[in-house]
């Protein structure tokens, strides 16, 4: 078992900087998720840890050994690829045992590990098959199996579920989480899917343009996003943003006028008269007549554009001030139709305000 420490890591491809000043300590047995939009550098970082990309600057340590110049095979890692990368001319057993055979592991030891991994992943009956005879989900399990039998210090997973259909993805998500709990191996998992990140990670690294935006537990990322990017990236539907002007302890614009709580109004003192982004999550908005939100003086006037009934809840997509489009999660029995003008209430405890230029979350600055 091992911790992984990255210090001031940079990756440059020619004049393009893919990863900038990446600092992170991943604890032993932790399930760390790298999440961000495509091109944010998350996969590049993973590949640097794997040794598939050279580190331009900075150090990467696995366990207590700096591995910058250690070839991938000697880093004691195993990787699961997005497209599985199973050896097509080998059967499942041979695929899983390939690494062990290369390392001259004794035969009975190989047999024991392959059987055990196959049992954990429920692919014992597939051991004689070739990859082309397997379904996508089965191939994914084999790819996981190939990583497990190696009994590495660190698992690296590069979007392992993104090629599966939605239902299978949810299933495999749970399987991988279970596997991690069972094996307790430090895992670094790359995904662009914030739901995967939230559900699987013990901690999450949110990245954008090669820079770490925030590292925190899922719930802290959700409740205390450091900036507008993290706030908008984590959560579905995403947080709503509207531009308003700070006036004392209120933020106002043409169609909304909300009060800020004590903490936020303190932080906004220097912003009096200035414009900020007001941020609020869809579930912290209530519809007049269908909400338990106590304060009735945080009003957003909105024009409903689309009503999306989902059964358990209904999403109202509405425009504010003629430009900002916001989403509100409301009671499924609310009688609202597209075109209606509605009065929405914002829950003051969950209001965020972001600087217009730096996009920093002022509530937690």
């Amino acid at each position, binding site marked *: 078992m091992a911790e992984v420490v990255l210090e001031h890591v940079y990756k440059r491809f020619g004049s393009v900087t893919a990863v900038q000043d990446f600092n992170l300590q991943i604890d032993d047995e932790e399930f760390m998720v790298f999440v961000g939009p495509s091109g944010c550098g998350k996969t590049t970082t993973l590949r640097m840890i794997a040794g*598939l990309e050279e580190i331009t600057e900075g150090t990467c340590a696995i366990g207590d050994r700096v591995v910058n110049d250690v070839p991938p*095979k000697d880093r004691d*890692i195993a990787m699961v*690829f997005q497209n599985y990368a*199973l*050896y097509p*001319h080998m059967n499942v057993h041979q695929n899983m045992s*390939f690494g062990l055979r290369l390392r001259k592991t004794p035969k009975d030891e190989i047999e024991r590990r392959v059987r055990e991994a196959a049992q954990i992943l429920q692919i014992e009956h597939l051991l004689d098959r070739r*990859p082309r005879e397997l379904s996508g989900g089965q191939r994914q399990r084999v790819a996981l199996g190939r990583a497990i039998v190696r009994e590495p210090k660190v698992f690296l997973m590069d979007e392992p579920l993104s*090629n599966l259909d939605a239902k299978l993805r949810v299933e495999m998500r749970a399987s991988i989480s279970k596997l991690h709990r069972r094996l307790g191996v430090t895992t670094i998992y790359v995904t662009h899917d914030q739901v995967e990140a939230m559900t699987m990670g013990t901690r999450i690294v949110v990245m954008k343009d090669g820079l770490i935006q925030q590292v925190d537990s899922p719930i802290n990322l959700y409740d205390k996003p450091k900036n507008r990017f993290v706030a908008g990236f984590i959560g579905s539907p995403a947080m709503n943003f509207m531009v308003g002007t700070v006036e004392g302890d209120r933020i106002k614009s043409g169609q909304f006028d909300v009060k800020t709580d004590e903490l936020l109004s303190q932080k906004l003192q220097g912003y009096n008269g200035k414009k900020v982004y007001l941020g609020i999550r869809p579930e912290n908005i209530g519809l007049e007549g269908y909400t338990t939100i106590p304060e009735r003086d945080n009003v957003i006037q909105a024009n409903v554009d689309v009503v999306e009934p989902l059964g358990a809840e209904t999403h109202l997509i509405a425009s504010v001030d003629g430009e900002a489009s916001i989403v509100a999660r409301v009671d499924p029995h609310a009688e609202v139709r597209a075109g209606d003008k509605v009065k929405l209430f914002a829950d003051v405890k969950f209001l965020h305000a972001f600087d217009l230029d730096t996009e920093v979350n002022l509530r937690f600055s």
Partner: protein
Amino acid sequence: MIRVGSGKVGKPIKWSYLLGRTVLFIVLTALLIVFMLPVYGVIVTSFKSVAEVSTSGYWNLPQSLNLANFIKVLNPDDGNLGLYLKNSLLLTIPASVFSIALGTLAGYGLAKYSFNGNAALFVFMVAGMFLPPQIALIPIFRLMNDIGLYDTLWAVIIIHTAFGIPICTLIMRNFFYTVPNALREAALIDGANDYGIFVRIMLPLTRPALAVLATLQFTWIWNDFLWPFILTQRADSRTVMVGILNLTGQYSVDWGGQAAASFVASLPTLVIFIFFQRYFIRGLTVGAVKG
């Protein structure tokens, strides 16, 4: 038979479809006949004596299955085809193996390693294919003479290896291009070195391409007349294609003997094709990666 949803259902489509198929069938049959006629001519002539050829011509069926021509051309004191066949094998097999081996290594390097000048090197190598070999005839003749390889099979082996490398590199490079990089990376992490990856992962996947190349190179080198004709002289180093020409006398042509020799000479390429055909499996990499 009729496309559903084309908007035009009924007789007109069916009629034109049938007409199209008929025309296609007639054209293909005509091409088949044109293509097969020489083969037919050679086979029937190989069973005829000189006298029979001059009375009944090349196209009639032989009066009997007379094997005299085959016995004659294979006789070491007469046609000596056995020696020439052996020489052809001694030339074709090493030249095919060398050109394919070098082309495979070059193709792998060009497809899977990025280095400065990769694309330029590839173009340079493939450009070799567009060079007509005839322009190098005299220099190569003199070169082989100077280094003492003239009139040996080695001279022809070297030339065919060299001229085979571009096409082998082209085909293998394009094949390796389709093999996902992730396979190489997975093997790297599993603990394989570059040599191991090439031998244990890449080579097994290239079987279809290797089969195509083996057939192509074998046929091409086996059938080649020019280089052995230019670079060899003695009967001891004569290949079968040159040997067939030698069956021609100064004033007469032994048509039956030449036909029999041609027939025998074409058998190895046929065997090679049948042997490698089973490896022409498309999509061997199916299942390696999703997509």
